[in-house]
């Protein structure tokens, strides 16, 4: 029983992580209309930059600066590579970001080397918080807290700031927003960069949990897609929910039948698609 409880808790942590990825992906998918395969690459980039920055500005400094740097790189990529794709068949954005992901993985390997690198987390975060529930380590709680904080800030940003309201409006009806005289190119650039910021943040957190390898992003991206499909395209709350659901499901499966822990998330997706094709919270007919 304790094992099950633990795995649910653990699944929740993993799920939060997927959700962090899925939120960024989902934002970019919504307003930019781009399936961003290079999201995993940006995650790795965020992690590696944090690794290089940490000796100079410390863990906490890197935690803050690295996602911004990733977001900035995202801004440049959007301007040069993504912008020509708007309004074209989604096929092209898929292929371009797919190629970009390969290039990024290669560059990271060339620059930082193929050997995995250790990423030190402050000592204060590494100890178990309780003797009985020893598995609740400081870093895990910190990870959940930070992910929740980031998510809450994102939602607040979208709800209360001018640019956030515009992004949401653009999500609902891009033509109307454009007709109102808002520069949608700039809006999309900001949105893309914000999505990449989330990937960078996830990267720093992943670095502390898993260490760094050039391929670290590749294994995290597929579950994030599934999270979006399960949650429903176009709904950020859905993506959050989707991430947590598949994380917990994978956690529970690990308790009883570890070999199926990967397959189970795809089964959940299949069930959702058959019972409710638009996803749990998705809107009908969006992005089709």
């Amino acid at each position, binding site marked *: 029983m304790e094992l099950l409880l633990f795995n649910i808790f653990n699944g929740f942590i993993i799920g939060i992580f997927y959700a962090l990825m899925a939120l960024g992906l989902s934002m970019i998918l919504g307003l930019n209309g781009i399936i961003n395969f290079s999201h995993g690459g940006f995650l790795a980039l965020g992690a590696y930059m944090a690794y290089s920055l940490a000796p100079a500005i410390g863990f906490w400094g890197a935690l803050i600066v690295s996602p911004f740097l990733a977001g900035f790189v995202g801004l440049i990529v959007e301007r040069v590579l993504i912008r020509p794709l708007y309004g074209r068949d*989604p*096929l092209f954005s*898929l292929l*371009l970001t*797919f190629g970009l992901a390969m*290039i990024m993985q*290669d560059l990271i390997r060339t620059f930082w080397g193929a050997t995995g690198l250790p990423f030190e987390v402050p000592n204060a975060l590494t100890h178990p918080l309780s003797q009985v529930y020893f598995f609740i380590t400081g870093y895990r709680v910190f990870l959940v807290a930070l992910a929740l904080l980031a998510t809450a800030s994102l939602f607040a940003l979208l709800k209360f700031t001018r640019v956030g309201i515009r992004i949401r409006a653009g999500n609902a009806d891009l033509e109307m927003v454009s007709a109102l005289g808002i520069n949608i190119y700039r809006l999309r650039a900001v949105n893309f960069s914000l999505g990449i910021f989330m990937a960078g943040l996830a990267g720093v957190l992943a670095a502390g949990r898993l260490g760094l390898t050039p391929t670290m992003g590749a294994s995290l991206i597929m579950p994030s897609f*599934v999270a*979006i499909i399960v949650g429903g395209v176009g709904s950020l709350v859905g993506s959050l929910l989707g991430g947590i659901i598949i994380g917990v499901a994978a956690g529970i499966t690990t308790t009883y039948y570890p070999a199926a822990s990967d397959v189970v998330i795809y089964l959940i997706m299949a069930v959702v698609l058959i019972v409710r094709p638009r996803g749990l919270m998705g809107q009908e007919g969006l992005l089709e």
Partner: protein
Amino acid sequence: MKSAASRHVDAAKPADAMSSQKSTRRRVAASALVWALLLTAPYWLPLTGGYTDLGSRVLVFSLAALGLNLLLGFTGGLSFGHAAYFGLGAYGTGLMLKFVTHSTPLALLAGVALGGLGATLFGPVTVRRRGIYFAMITIAIGQMFYFVAVRWNSLTGGEDGLTGFERTNIHFGHAILNLHNSTIFYYFTLFFFAIGCAVVWSVLRSPLGHTFVAIRENQKRLRFLGVSVGFYLWIAFAISGFIAALAGALYALLNNFTSPEDLNWVLSGDFVIICVLGGMRTFWGPLVGSVIYVVVQDYLSSITVNWMSFIGAIFVLAVLFFPWGLLGFFQRRIQK
């Protein structure tokens, strides 16, 4: 302005008929050239620094992309998960040879059936959605097969891949087709490639094919006309799945080996880029794309550790500068 335009159209009419006659002739000539090159490949390939197995590989990838292109280029269904049916074809063939029979044709048949039926079965789940959603669902279904293959150690060999089978010679009475010979296996592959081409060609010329293209051009209108779009998409999905499975089955025979990578979404991406590189809306696009992609990858990866960057750059540049592929690009220039 208006009158000038209509005059232009009038004047263009006879020229049009003439040019269509010309273009038909050109098309026939091009096809003849393609077949002539393919039939003689084992003789000229070594002269260019290639080798026969590379030729077989090009054919296998062309065939898979040809199948995918029926869906992608002609029906407008963006599948990013066709490696699943390719891989099922490969595993079906490999498992059959390893556990059931030593007959190559039977194993091939089993692979095609497994992959094709897989596509037929999962088609209805995917065709309910379109665009990006369709792409994501096809990827996810593909990954499901991938993980099944990775985890089902006892049957598939898991991560290690499926070994311990090999293609066997085919006996026709007294005559023996020695498939162990690379050149003969090339022609064996070419034979099935030709069958694949014939299937796609006749589908495209039939009313079914015209419906596919109509779906690509304006799905909404067809819906209003009462056409069951989902049904036709499903048919396109199934046919293309069968062809991809045939390619996968041949691939298993080529390597005498299958691994979960043959099911992975990265391979699906390769198939899509092959279609795009060659020209999605052209018949020979997949072949041209496959020649470029397979050959470039083969050479680059021998020369530089950073071959992935170059392949990635091909993706990026193709999307930005040649969205209609090499054949599409030349077609447009000729039409100009």
